[in-house]
């Protein structure tokens, strides 16, 4: 198993390298001006002042050398410094990462918490309620996230005054009050993020539950004397499989959606760092984000590949055979 993991990790390395190379090329071949990055495009700057500052702001080397330096520093886990404010990239990212994680994880939980039960009900019986629920979710899922966000802001925050409109709360000392405040601030952005996922999850879960809970299989199981908990225990691993795969369908949509949602709800996460970084051609910052995203995707695939055999014996045999062939 260890060998399998190592081999998978090694195979991922060229992919990672390729991704960073492409990202770097795009960022560095587009025209950019450090003067503009530094001033956020503000202020009349004369030719005299420009020539005075030009040398101080000009990159020391060409793009090839810059990429090589970047790569070398990366080996020492040095991501460089943001071109905009000169702070270490790791400091900028560690400030923003927790916000993105908490928002996306909450949305993921919300999707599962509502999508699975709806799917279950839909699979169990033809119910008008469940159908209507699914129809509503389907309708909501086709509303573009930014439009949904604007509608919900106007309704729940401005008109009804039930929920905070934007931001992350007053902060302050950690405690139950601060946590409750944060939760209140998360309701709207989290719901907006989950909107598109709910319909997908409900439909996906309904189909999955239908296949698993096929009457023939149930009848056979009952005939063997299984019922209640023992019945669930036999069927649970089977049903888990598609729901692990479902994450792969939801997470990329969440991550891309959260860039928009973060901007609308003033959520201080990575999406905003990315937007600002791309606008300002802040390549050390953007490169670190690209790398982070690539590693997340590749690691996600690896984890899925490891979890699935643990659940599904058939896949376990496949991995074992793979081990024997290569190892």
């Amino acid at each position, binding site marked *: 198993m260890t060998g399998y993991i190592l081999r998978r990790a090694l195979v991922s390395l060229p992919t990672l390298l390729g991704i960073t190379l492409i990202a770097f090329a795009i960022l560095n071949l587009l025209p950019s001006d450090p003067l503009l990055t530094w001033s956020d495009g*503000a202020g009349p700057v*004369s030719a005299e002042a420009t020539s005075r500052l030009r040398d101080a702001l000009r990159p020391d080397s060409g793009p090839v050398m810059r990429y090589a330096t970047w790569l070398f520093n990366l080996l020492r886990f040095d991501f460089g410094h943001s071109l905009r*404010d000169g702070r270490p990239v790791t400091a900028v990212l560690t400030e923003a990462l927790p916000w993105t994680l908490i928002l996306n994880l909450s949305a993921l939980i919300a999707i599962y918490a509502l999508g699975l039960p709806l799917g279950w009900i839909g699979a169990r019986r033809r119910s008008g*309620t469940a159908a209507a629920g699914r129809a509503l979710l389907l309708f909501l899922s086709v509303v573009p996230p930014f439009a949904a966000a604007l509608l919900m802001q106007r*309704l729940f925050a*401005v008109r009804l005054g039930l929920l905070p409109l934007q931001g992350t709360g007053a902060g302050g000392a950690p405690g139950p009050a601060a946590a409750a405040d944060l939760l209140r601030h998360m309701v709207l952005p989290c719901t907006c993020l989950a909107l598109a996922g709910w319909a997908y999850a409900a439909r996906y879960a309904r189909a999955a539950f239908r296949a698993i809970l096929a009457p023939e299989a149930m009848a056979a199981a009952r005939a063997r004397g299984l019922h209640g908990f023992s019945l*669930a225990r036999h069927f649970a691993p089977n049903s888990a499989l598609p729901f692990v795969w479902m994450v792969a369908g939801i997470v990329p949509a969440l991550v891309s959606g959260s860039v928009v949602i973060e901007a609308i709800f003033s959520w201080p996460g990575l999406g905003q760092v990315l937007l600002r970084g791309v606008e*300002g051609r802040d390549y050390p910052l953007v490169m670190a984000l690209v790398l982070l995203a690539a590693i997340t995707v590749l690691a996600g695939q690896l984890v899925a590949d490891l979890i699935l055999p643990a659940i599904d014996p058939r896949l376990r045999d496949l991995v074992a055979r793979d081990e024997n062939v290569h190892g």
Partner: protein
Amino acid sequence: MACSGGGRARAGIPRRLLAAATRAAVALAVAALVAATTTGCSPARDEPPGRSTGGRGGRFVFPLAIEPATLNFVSGTDQASVLVERLVADSLVDHDADLRVVPRLAASWEIAADGRTLTFHLRDGVRFHDGVACTSADVLYTWERIMDPASHAVGRVDAFLPVETVEAPDPLTVRVTYREPYAPALRGWEIPILPAHLYRGADFATAAANRAPVGTGPFRFVSWEAGRRIVLAANPDYWAGPPGLDRFEFAIIPSADTAYQALLAGEVDYARIPQAVAATRAEDPEFRRRFSTVRYVPLFFYYIAWRGDGSNPFFADARVRRALGMAIDRQGYVRSVLHGLGEVVTSPFQALLPPAGDAPTAGAPTAGAMPAAGAAAADAPDPETAATLLDAAGWRRASTGGLRRRNGTPFRFTLLVFAGGEDHVQFSQVAQDNLRRLGIEMTIERLDWQTLWSRLKSGDFQAALSGFMPGPDADSLYGLLHSSQIDGGQNYAAFRDPDTDAWFLAARRTLDDRERRALYRRIENRIVAEQPYAFLFAPAVIAGVNARFAGAKASPQGILGHMPGAFALRPAAGGS
């Protein structure tokens, strides 16, 4: 699972009822959403929960679209940084809401007869927020850092290039000597003063004070939560007395629409009102009960630069530039797209020079003054004269219609615009339509800001729509119009006129206000005749301020961008 039978048992009427109820609920929810967005502002609660209203002054929340890059007073020259620095730090001089120079850290100053020496007398007893006295040594240090290219003081360097020496003969005196008489000298010192004792010995780019600034301003720094907010508190020992507010908070809100909704929801106390709803809001009694409004026209204006250096066959001819400028319907744009909230701009000096025939004692330019020069008055589109001018310049239209041609070359060019700016894109479409009627085909190329900037700098374009933000002094147009600024500056039209060059330099050396204004009038008349740029319009800003606060005064640089600015904000009398 034994429960499967239970489901079937519940079949029949109840289930149908349930389905109907659900459908009704769905319909209601949709209707509520639609209603919420069409009826707009509402009887929402007045006082948002969790808002502390205790204390003498309360807390004012101001939205910032972009987080400041740094709060190092010298390096932080982006708009957001400058706004925060104004509150935390003091400059030697500042300007009031009418853009007149007023004293700040310097109680007084005098300019020597030769116009080369400027002597400031600092206020006695002023201390930084950490208790250390602020002296002329801090001013000297701030100047040194600005001149050090490693400080990246973009946008601050210009005013100090003509400086020969800065001396501090005693702790309360700063003497600045210029190489030659320099009329805009005083305004150059609108720069916040750094605490030298916190930067000496530290790395200037990464010093702790860059993210926890210490100044002498009316508010002291409390905290900076990355991506979220910057919190300031009143400085009770401010030399002009404590400010009217207890706390001042900058909330980072990237979306302008969110900022406006946050104003309605009571989460911020100031926000720009979208032009499309500004008129209806002004008449809405509910809105007027909860908010006061301020209106100002920023100095910023839009223009189209015609690249006139002969790199294209069109724009080296002033008749062509004049014709195109005449054909463009600025008035219609301001009226219909901006809902009347803006001004047509026919001269870059429009807001900076007082109207002709004003009292000779008025030393200061009046913000938002209407065009004065007679030549600039014709701002209504005039396609007939434009067509005549184009004919005269050799660009003729065949009797069968189609594009204008000269020696077989069709009049077909590309306009660069910033894709991220609503006004940029919308106006370019208006201009495209105006020119099509004249037999000119204008292709619009949308670019991101960095690409547009680099194309402008390299002169790699035929025409470009952009904007310019002059300072309060007319000399700031030097960068747009002087021929030395074609390469590296912002003279993107490549306008080259020896007279204009000479007048700009003469105006710098002229200390007499009237003479100086006369020189700028000459430049203005020349620019209006030559039309290197088509000057377009300046959108107005309408902003709402929560009625719980009083003292908001608009200047062309907003409610914070002047003295006293935030210092004068205070809780409204009778309010909570």
